[in-house]
């Protein structure tokens, strides 16, 4: 059960019955240790159940919107419904990240095996696919929609569990999760101690610290690029929803495809700068003013959450993406996020220069 696919050359070793027992015990203790490791990487059950139930509820909502049950609701109510669903989804993800960050491992990984990939990709595919059933089978009875929602939810839960089980088998068999880490922070391996952490900056002489902090301060375009990327993600997702709602139309695929290309380009640029600068992306604020700016930036992020929910509700209702409103809201978000982001970044490094 050593590293997989590794040829083994053994030397003749003395093996008395006692030694055999002792070696078997040692290997057995390793299995329990690896199970403990697997438990750390497993997604919590409450999360998997919440996601599955969420998909089931969303399926019923789509049926209600499509079947005319909610036809008496105003646009505002539908839009508020979209905002609420988006907010619940965001909160769920934030709680998951918060919980996983406390497990003391680099938990953000890709599936470790082909079967893990299969189950991991199929889970959201089945969940989202079930949501479209009431659209394809227009006018289906409520109980049929309910059965579809329950089956979709249970299937999603099972697939997520199977994905975790595949990862567990891989770890217990002696596989290493280090090979499939997704946070991409190989710089954190500290080879040559290259990552610019606060502790490392504070250890520098004053003059050198000032110069390094100046070099690490993000360029003006960085936060703008991040803001634009978030808005493009929302617009492209809504365009896909619109395609489902009203079917393909002239130029229907141009906006999502164009957006995905732009998102890729922006993401690559932002990631390249962060990697080249070797900045510790988990550095926290050091002074009260930094904290205020940090929270201002965080509160600004509620704008795209609202816009996503608003757009989702509006698009489900009318079939059209509210591009004008998204453009205005997006502009406000990008401007505010860029300003607060720049102020925060500069303040953070000015704190470091002062030795806070």
């Amino acid at each position: 059960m050593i590293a997989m696919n590794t040829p083994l050359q053994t030397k003749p070793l003395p093996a008395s019955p006692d030694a055999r027992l002792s070696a078997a015990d040692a290997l057995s203790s390793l299995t329990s240790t690896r199970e403990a490791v697997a438990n750390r990487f497993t997604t919590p059950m409450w999360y998997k159940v919440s996601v599955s139930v969420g998909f089931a509820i969303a399926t019923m909502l789509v049926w209600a919107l499509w079947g005319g049950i909610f036809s008496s609701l105003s646009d505002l109510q539908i839009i508020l419904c979209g905002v609420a669903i988006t907010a619940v989804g965001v909160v769920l993800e934030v709680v998951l990240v918060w919980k996983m960050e406390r497990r003391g491992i680099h938990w953000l990984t890709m599936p470790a095996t082909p079967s893990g990939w299969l189950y991991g990709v199929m889970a959201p595919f089945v969940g989202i696919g079930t949501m479209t059933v009431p659209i394809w089978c227009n006018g289906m009875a409520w109980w049929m929609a309910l059965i579809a929602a329950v089956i979709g939810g249970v299937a999603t839960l099972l697939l997520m569990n199977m994905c975790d089980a595949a990862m567990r088998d891989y770890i217990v068999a002696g596989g290493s999760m280090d090979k499939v880490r997704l946070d991409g922070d190989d710089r954190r391996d500290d080879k040559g101690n290259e990552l610019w952490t606060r502790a490392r900056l504070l250890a520098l002489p004053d003059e050198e610290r000032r110069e390094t902090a100046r070099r690490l301060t993000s360029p003006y375009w960085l936060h703008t690029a991040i803001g634009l990327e978030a808005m493009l993600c929302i617009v492209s997702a809504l365009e896909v929803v619109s395609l489902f709602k009203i079917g393909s139309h002239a130029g229907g695929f141009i906006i999502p495809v164009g957006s995905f290309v732009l998102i890729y380009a922006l993401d690559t640029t932002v990631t390249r700068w962060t990697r080249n600068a070797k900045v510790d992306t988990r550095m926290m604020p050091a002074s009260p003013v930094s904290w205020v700016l940090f929270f201002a930036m965080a509160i600004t992020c509620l704008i795209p959450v609202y816009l996503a929910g608003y757009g989702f509700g509006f698009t489900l209702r009318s079939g059209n993406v509210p591009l004008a409103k998204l453009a205005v809201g997006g502009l406000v978000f990008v401007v505010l996020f860029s300003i607060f982001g720049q102020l925060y970044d500069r303040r953070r490094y000015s704190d470091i220069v002062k030795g806070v």
Partner: protein
Amino acid sequence: MATPVITAQFNEVIHAPMRLRICGLLQGAGEVEFAAIRDMLGVSDAVCSKHLKVLSDNGYVTLAKRPGQRNGHDVTWVSLTDEGREAFESHIAALQAIAGLG
């Protein structure tokens, strides 16, 4: 790509039960926080520290301190070195050979 060949080699340093488990969990999880190792092994800080020091002194693990997210204090992250990974895999191969599993 050629896969590395592992020679079975019994290792006295790694064979101590606690150190064997530490190496096992580091090999599986990659880099792990000190507190997580302590919790997974169910031992005290002192015991965990003692065994990590032995492994570190032999060049099998690296200890890196980084600012923690919870309270700003430095957190120790532990990972196997290349030498440690090789020694651990050789030791496991030796154990499997002794146990008649190799």
